[in-house]
């Protein structure tokens, strides 16, 4: 099963190496990892998407991460109400005869075209992984020339209503 783990870390030399090393050392399967600065100086946020076989394994992962000296806080937020987003850039060949067709797919996904050239366009799309996957599937028949994904980054929502279905996301 897929779990989303987020953590804040002290931005010291080698910290990312320590985290990724831990995943390979303990034989954890990592799908994506995204890193960036936060509102606090010297603190970064890392979001990992991991595949685990059972709950015990994800508990081990969070404990091992917590043990790292530079890790300030770790949480497995998969069961919380969260907002999770990923951004992709995709270069697609566009010919006069299918241009309108491709644009008609882009529009309902609220993706945007951020570069246009004679025979290709670059599409930017943000959303949850499922939405991204669906979009990629739809575009695939037109031939994807290049694809870059940032990996998921996520936050727990401001309001955590327990016992409720996972809330849907706006945008």
């Amino acid at each position: 099963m897929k779990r989303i783990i987020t953590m804040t870390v002290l931005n010291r030399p080698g910290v990312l190496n320590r985290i990724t090393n831990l995943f390979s050392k303990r034989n954890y399967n990592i799908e994506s990892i995204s890193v960036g600065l936060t509102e606090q100086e010297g603190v970064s946020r890392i979001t990992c998407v991991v595949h685990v076989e059972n709950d015990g394994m994800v508990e081990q992962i969070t404990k091992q991460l917590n043990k790292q000296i530079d890790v300030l806080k770790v949480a497995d937020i998969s069961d919380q109400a969260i907002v999770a987003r990923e951004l992709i850039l995709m270069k697609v060949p566009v010919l006069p005869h299918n241009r309108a067709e491709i644009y008609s797919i882009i529009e309902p996904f609220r993706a945007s075209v951020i570069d246009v050239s004679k025979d290709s366009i670059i599409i930017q799309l943000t959303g949850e992984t499922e939405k991204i996957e669906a979009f990629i599937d739809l575009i695939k028949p037109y031939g994807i020339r290049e694809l870059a994904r940032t990996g998921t980054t996520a936050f727990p929502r401001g309001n955590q209503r327990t016992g409720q279905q996972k809330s849907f996301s706006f945008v």
Partner: protein
Amino acid sequence: MEAALKETKANTSEVTGADLLISALEKENVEVIFGYPGGAVLPIYDKLYDSKILHVLPRHEQGGIHAAEGYARISGKPGVVIATSGPGATNIITGIADAMMDSLPLVVFTGQVATGVIGTDAFQEADILGITTPITKYNYQIRDIKDIPRIIKEAFYIATSGRPGPVVIDFPKDLAAGVSAEPVEEEIYLPGYQPTTEPNFLQVRKLSEAVSRAKRPVILAGAGILHAKASSVLKEFAEQQNLHVVHTLLGLGGFPANHELFLGMAGMHGCYAANMALYNCDLLINIGARFDDRLTGNLKHFAPKATVAHIDIDPAEIGKNVPTQIPVVGDAGEALRQLLRVGASPPQQEEWKETLAAWKKDFPYHYENSEVLKPQKVMELLYEKTAGEAIVVTDVGQHQMWAAQYYQLQQADRWVTSGGLGTMGFGLPASIGAQLADPTACVVAVLGDGGFQMSTQELAVIAEFKLPIKIAILNNKALGMVRQWQEIFYKERYSHSKNPVQPSFVKLAEAYGIRGFEINSEAEAHLVLNEVLHDKEPVLLDFRVDGAENVYPMIAPGKGIHEMVGVKK
């Protein structure tokens, strides 16, 4: 001329990075450094020349770090190591990994090429930060001279607090020689590191209630007892609740071996009573052990009927290998003191006690004595003739298991062995550190002929410092444990496990100015041990033991803890 002289004076009065290092070590009350000089650490060694800290020069960096491990194990203080960049640093990797596995506090300084050439594959450059990341509790590379005091202070704090471990500080040469333009920083800043020492009282109470209810309880005590200096409170608790105690290999000495509540060591070569207690118990109280696979055997058959309680300072160890119903995160000593204070009523376990007593009496470790000198006999003699009071240091292999089985340790911190990593070549240098940590103790280094030859060169250090170490080689002219496995699991195909050529160990010792004896029989062993054990001089004893002897009992790989072979009939 005068101007030049003035300039030198001005320079010497300035505080360099190396000065900051030495004064930080002095502040930490470091007594001894195990180090090996080289290009990248020359500025540090120049300052060490004037320092009062004892410096021990091993004859190979690996010997230096194992000596530091032995020192840390016996003194309870962090072992300090210096190695130069590149090959110096890579030569200590085994020791760092060993210390990580066995939770020994080390502060290791590696030289590094100058900051300007890092990343250019400069002479003697190696990415030590990258290499040591998975085998250190933490590591640093100094990037600014003003950080040196803070980093060293943090390193000592991290190495010794919580679950101890090795910390590496990579020290570029130019920063050791350079002078800080800014005021130095000394305040430690580790907001992400707050080890829990005080256990949660509700959890302790839950454990206490489980003890009262248990019908077949047993304590499994690991090295956490030793790190927490909790052996006396463990004894108090075991006696208060009338609980039997089983040790891991690394925990030996934490509970006195001659105590009536002691069952022995558990695990692959543990004794029958201890392993059967773990298999049949209904409450397993693990205090500071990490359920290593050499202890548990096949996890499916490990303590299958038991409620498992686990006290550990490292929360990541709880539930890692064995599902745990009562987790207690904290210092072993604190937890035991709280348990004592709760003072619940001891469990009703008459039947269990009878069973345990019978197992202990009927199935002790055993071997058949013969004309040929038996390695087990040697360990028994060493035990008797040192009254069980020696510091026993071992290498890795058959002799290590025989030492664990037959040398009945009565006190804590008298046992130095490489458990988790199982590092051959560990024993001889580790005994150097152990002796330096306790100069008046009788230190016995029990080694195999294979492991001894991995670090023979350290005899020079023993001779240089006149360390009165008794080096006992159980010489079976083979890599005994490998040979044993080949005999049992590989149809006696002894692939490269027998040493066809061996030097005379006695002459080798004499070449270093150390007395040596070859011992071929029990009678000779008596005579020689009586003569040399109380000497204030080093001695090498080459015990020519039966090469066909195997370590038993044994749990074959994949088997359960109750499926021992070679138990006394």
